């Protein structure tokens, strides 16, 4: 599991039901010097976000339990200040439009460019801090 440190604000949460993807994205974020908390079940994350400050969450759309968009909808109620980046394995313009319309910070299609992804993450965190 990735390191975690409750005292720091810059914890990036990851939610993806594919363990391979979850792990690899976590490593990518760690390589950027960020702290990561990974969740393979959306519900576990939603429980977490109710009691913890989450500046940024990276969500997969297609998950067994519930879709990333549903998770995002709940986050916007539970923790409006949390920025959301969505990653998906499927080209889905409707989902993309919906997500961007709801104020999702970035919408990336897998497989994505690592640098592009990290730029989005940094941007989201910068916006969170400044806001």
């Amino acid at each position: 599991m990735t390191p975690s440190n409750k005292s720091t604000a810059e914890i990036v949460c990851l939610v993806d039901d594919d363990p391979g993807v979850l792990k690899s994205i976590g490593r990518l974020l760690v390589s950027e010097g960020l702290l990561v908390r990974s969740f393979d079940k959306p519900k576990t994350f939603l429980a977490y976000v109710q009691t913890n400050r989450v500046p940024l969450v990276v969500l997969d759309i297609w998950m067994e339990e519930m879709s990333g968009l549903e998770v995002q909808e709940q986050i916007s109620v539970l923790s409006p200040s949390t920025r959301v980046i969505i990653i998906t394995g499927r080209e889905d313009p409707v989902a993309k439009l919906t997500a961007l319309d709801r104020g999702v910070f970035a919408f990336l299609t897998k497989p994505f460019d690592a640098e592009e992804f990290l730029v989005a993450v940094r941007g989201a965190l910068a916006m969170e801090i400044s806001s």
Partner: protein
Amino acid sequence: MKPGEHRETIDSSREEQLSLLQTITMEVAAAGDLSSALEVVLRRVCEKTGWALGQAWVPNQDRTALDCGPGWFCGNTDLKRFRAASEEAHFIPGVGLPGRVWKSKRPAWIEDVTLDGNFPRNKAAGKVGLKAAVGIPILSGDEVIAVIEFFVQEARAQDERLVKVITAVAAQLDLVMERKRAEEKLSTTNEILQSILSSMADAVIVADPQGNFLLFNPAAERMFGRGATQTASSEWSQQYGLYLPDRVTPFPPDQLPLTRSIRGEEVNNVEIFVRHAKAPQGLWTRVNGRPLRGPDSEVTGGVIVCRDITEVKKEEFFLFDQSRVLEMIAANASLSEVLTSLVLLMEGQADGLRCSILLLDQDGKHVRHGAAPNLPETYVKAVDGAAIGPRNGSCGTAMYLRKPVVVKDVMTDPLWADYRTLAEICGLRACWSTPILSPQGEVLGSFAMYRQETRGPLPEELRLTQIATHIAGIAIERQRVQETLREREARINLAAESADLAFWVIYPEQKTAWMSDKGRVIYGFDPDLPLTRDLICARVHPDERAAAHAAFDRACESHGTFESEHRLVLPHGRTRWVIVRGRCLADEHGNLLELIGVTIDVSAQKQTDLQLQIQREEMSHLNRVALMGEMTASVAHELNQPLTAIANNASAARRFLERGNIDPALLQQLLQDMVADSQRAGEVIRGIRALVQKDKNIARSVLNLNAVIADTLRLVSSDVLLRESAVATEMDHTLPQVEAAPVQIQQVLLNLIMNALDAVESLPPAERRIIVRTRSLNGEKAEVSVRDFGAGLPKDRPDKVFDHFFSTKQTGMGMGLTIVRSIIEMHGGKITAENAPDRGARFSFHLPAARRDSRSEAA
């Protein structure tokens, strides 16, 4: 001669003289005028004293000489000759006996006139034997009003007593005559005054301090409807129908001019409205009043003079009402209201006058009802919609001829032939109509006057017509302009509303802004929120804000225009796509005043674009599905997951390595994961292959390619329309049938047509053409070609387009044509790509004709 010498010759006693005096006094008092009174004196004196002749002399008009008065007395007919001489004589003061008396104002006695040197009539006297004479002045105050003279035919010495008696009688005469003359004079003045007062148009009323009328002239009776009836002054207002200028409030009695003048006030120009049974319409009077004062300037009454100013007032009200109609026009009252007011105003100016206004229809050929509040409805309805022409009543003809038409009798005038019965029913007899013209001379309508008697217009009515047509012209013209404006405005608003256009203005100096309601909806501002430039700019999506600001600032600096397409971020995180176009307005000194512009909400369009993209992607997705069977999005997802993991792990490893702080154990694990994910991906691909194998078994049937093309074109027809393109077909009806899987052939056609549409997309709409053509190749093969007019294919090797991953499109996968070729080849056909001779690309494929018995076979 000494007095008393002829005392005895006077045949009269003292008593007789007294009785003479009394008789004369009584008779003189009874006499009607001076001459008859003189006659009485002359006769009585002669009778009582025995003098033979008595005559009177009165000063002529300019008092330069004495003329012989008409009255005289003569006791002897012989003396008439002397009378005749006297009648011809005139005496200036001092000349003759009368002149001497006149001048001296004293009695004069002549013993024998024939011997007197100052007696011009001495010859005439001598002929009739007159000798003695006496002249007595009749004085009024200090003035001689007459001289009386008496003669006798013997010389007589002065008789002092007789002179006294006659003088006393004369004095009596004077007193009486003085009174009579005064009476005469007074009565003359009174007559003049009476005549003035009764003939004058102004009412004159005089009252004493108790309010009793002393004078109430006929004009006053006419004006106030009745003569002077004695009532308390507090009831005058009620009795004579006196009102304040509001025409309804009774005039306060203590403020009435007569009451005030009796109180000693001078009253100037008080207007009173009078209405009573004899003047039901009411009339207006302007009153001046003065107190009457006695010798010690105590008030002895009051007098008022009242002038009838009804006509003046009428004109004043007429002008006022005209200005009210003009105000109605200015306040944009409805045309029908304005014209009705105008007609009523005109009708109010003359008794029995009916007016109407007709409008000329926009077609310039028919009349439309304008206003006719007092004409029968039957008439109004019958006229509405009638045609204009050279013999179409007064109005239709006036509009047609563009000049006034006077019909004195509608029963006989040929212009009214078609309307006679109607006019008769409605009781109209004369009708004069004048066209209403616009300032440009265009006929707008007509104004007509109707009368129930046969006659032409009076000068006053012509004047009213002129005013009416002028005002009506203004009203109609204005209404037309307003209507045009309204229509234009409505059209603009409608266009703006339906185009989701927002209007806005930014005042750079004040940094304030205005936005239409629609704009506030688009930008998500509350209707009442005061807007500023910053508020509007803050709505721009952060990603596009810098670019939008730059365009805006450039426009401000150059006073030019700007256009920006960007997203708006609304409250609650919603976004909207908009196109903003603006323009700077500067004053004549080049100072920037404001920026005006429109914002167009293109979210829906973006949505459509997206949907279009989705459709297209679904189609290309279908292509893959057709080829790969049951390969679905979840398969793609499956493949994406391991690929993502591999890519991320590799990136992470590279970054760790770059930092040089990688834990070898972590690297080990990372590489292991990558191998595992690669195997996973391989599994997925194997799964797909299995599906593709299955795909070979898609059922084939005998097809007419023309029909498949028609079906396919139906599928894409909405896309073609959206892209403003046109697809033409040139079908060969002898095309042989082919044996193929219809879904797959449709995928091929879809692919080629969509490619062609993409190829022409950058051309102007008129040039976005595609031609789909079929051809029979000797009945053995069916050929289909799809031709576009776009940029064409790579010149060196057009066939390259069929290679894997070749794409001229930014978003293309480069898979479509590869799949197309595999489908065609699977069906035993061939596909080629080439550039058309002039421009564009042409894709052609052919399939072998189906064998006759193929229907029974299933592949």
